[in-house]
């Protein structure tokens, strides 16, 4: 018995927020974000911005890994491409395009560029499955970062020492504080999430899931593996490119080492922890992955009294905790946090009848 589930039209049944709990949750969250933007302190804003940027990228990885079933260990490279394209274009186009329109020119171009390179990196996916693809994307990540670091490209990329990034300028509104950036990032992240949800409830997203679940069966339904695998790669790369653009606008400087393997693994880990192939999975995952190191820092400071000698343990401890978190979820809750919330929601739906 599921309460409040009477639908009189197909349209009502096809809605995303098809019951009052979901509606309350989403509208409540929007309200909470507005309050947060107004009243949270600088530290909390910083953490929230990190989450938002990572969220956009993880939503992209979710499209590829969660829905299409193609594993990538190299999506950090796409975030790098987005960030560097935005920065380099902004530098190159200063004076040619008025500053107040710059954002609306460079961000779409950055997205398009990463999508295109996503297709290139995705080419092996047509012929190889699973771990071959994981290694191919990993290799691509190493190569991209290596090229960014090269002295030959340093005039544009800044090389190993990194490059200063521009501030976002929305039609004259210069977003030079974290709080303003938080507003932009949360709007972009929310829209990204919504778009991904739309995608998977229509033809294209269903084709992705079909490829993940059983590729030959998808083929006999008329789904071209070539086309949809590459589309999935392009989309997920585009999301990461967008995240990279936000990254560049948010931080005052970017360095190649920020986009190395660690970032790629963080994206996949966030997805696994949150729940693969679920719309809300990335949201939960990103929260945990971003909060965890902060919590460890606070605890370490509390237990050691903040002395310098023990400070060197913090970073390795964060690393270990990250690994343990990933392993724990894979062993104990492979469907991620989303599965836990599902159970809670199911109980709520059936209340006051039997729990199940």
């Amino acid at each position, binding site marked *: 018995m599921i309460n409040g589930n009477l639908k009189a039209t197909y349209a009502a049944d096809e809605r995303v927020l098809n019951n009052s709990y979901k509606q309350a949750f989403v509208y409540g969250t929007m309200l909470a974000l507005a309050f947060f933007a107004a009243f949270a302190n600088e530290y909390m804003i910083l953490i929230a911005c990190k989450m938002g940027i990572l969220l956009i990228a993880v939503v992209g990885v979710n499209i590829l890994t969660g829905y299409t079933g193609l*594993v990538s*260990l190299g999506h950090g490279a796409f975030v790098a491409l987005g960030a560097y394209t935005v920065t380099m274009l902004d530098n190159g186009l200063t004076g040619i395009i008025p500053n107040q329109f710059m954002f609306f020119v460079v961000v779409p171009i950055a997205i398009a560029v990463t999508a295109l390179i996503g297709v290139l990196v995705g*080419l*092996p996916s047509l*012929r*190889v499955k*699973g*771990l*071959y693809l*994981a*290694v*191919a994307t*990993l*290799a*691509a990540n*190493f*190569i991209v970062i*290596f090229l960014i670091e090269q002295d030959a490209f340093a005039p544009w990329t800044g090389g190993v020492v990194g490059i200063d990034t521009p501030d976002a300028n929305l039609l004259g509104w210069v977003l030079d504080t974290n709080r303003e950036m938080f507003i932009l990032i949360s709007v972009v992240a929310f829209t990204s999430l919504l778009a991904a949800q739309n995608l998977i409830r229509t033809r294209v997203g269903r084709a992705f899931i079909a490829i993940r679940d059983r590729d*030959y069966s998808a083929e006999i339904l008329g789904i071209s593996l070539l086309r949809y695998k590459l589309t999935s790669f392009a989309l997920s790369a585009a999301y990461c490119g967008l995240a990279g653009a936000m990254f560049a606008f948010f931080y005052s400087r970017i360095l190649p080492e920020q986009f190395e*393997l660690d970032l790629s*693994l963080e994206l*996949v*880990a966030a997805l*696994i922890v949150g729940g693969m192939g679920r719309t809300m999975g990335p949201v939960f995952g990103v929260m945990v992955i971003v909060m965890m190191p902060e919590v460890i820092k606070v605890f370490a400071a509390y237990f050691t009294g903040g002395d310098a000698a023990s400070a*060197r*343990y913090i*970073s*390795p*401890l*964060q*690393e*270990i905790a*990250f*690994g*343990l*978190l*990933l*392993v724990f979820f*894979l*062993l104990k809750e*492979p469907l991620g946090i989303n599965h836990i919330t599902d159970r809670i929601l199911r109980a709520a739906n059936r209340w006051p009848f039997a729990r199940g």
Partner: protein
Amino acid sequence: MGQLTQFAINGLMSGAIYALIAVGIVSVYKATKVVNFAHGYLIMFGAYFYYTFAVIIPGQEWAPSWLASWEPVWLVEMKEGLPMFSPMGAVLDWVQNVPRIIFGIIGALIANAIVGRIIERTLMRPLMGQSIFAMIMVTVGLISIMSGAASIIWTADADFVPHIAPNAPVRFELFGSTIFLFGADLVNMLIALIIFGGIVLMVRYTKSGVAIRATAEDQSTAYSMGISVPKVFSRAWVLASTTGAIAGAILATRNGISPSLGLFGFSVLAIVLMGGLDSYIGVFLAAMAVGVMEAMTQWQLGGDWAEIVPYVAVLAVLLIRPHGLFGSKEVERI
């Protein structure tokens, strides 16, 4: 021509080390179908264990002095009057180090075997029968755990570890040009080749080798035929961690020790996929080819370009031959 030969030989020497690292990845894959992304970090542990047993422990006050430096009377007498940097001097230096080298290697082998065993029991065994994706991602999680653990356990700043073999310079003529090598590198290559060959023969001809191959073919059938699949799993991991210990010791003498040794695992992973994952021969050839290509790149473009050679090579190979040079393509039944 002379330089070409020199660089080719350098390449073959690092290729042999790659092959030695690769053998651990291939063996675990053959037995368990898991591609161990953390193998490089197992090697890093091997290197640190070698460092612990060959440098840290002999340096302690409570350790017997012959362990740190063995100086019997005849050795001291022989060393007297030798000029600096003479080949004989290098050999005698090595003889002095022999006790701690042996102690270091045995210690590294045992300690790494225990680590491999623990990983298999606590992380891989519970996932038996689960999706390959989950198993692979567990090894990815292992990367962070191991690299974090290493930085907590060993505070070592870069330090020297004793070479496994006498590091005397060797000079000889080949194709009319003079080739210059270090003895230790040559011995390292031999060790790597012997271990690689031994494992291939073991898998092919011994009973436990047959068990590994049967498990690779079909886990549940092998299980029902009386092969203890869990035992095969743990043997494969012990094999990987012990060969990894040797590889780690060798890498430590070549590159010094630091947590970044783990990154070797990724280049070797690329090599393994190039060769074809389940083919020892293919992986061996790929390791040698990448070793030589790296040396050539180093010669022509400079050292840092060499580091992306395995990655470029694997992408090129996968585009042309998706299952590697010698890998077996699985026929899908519909």
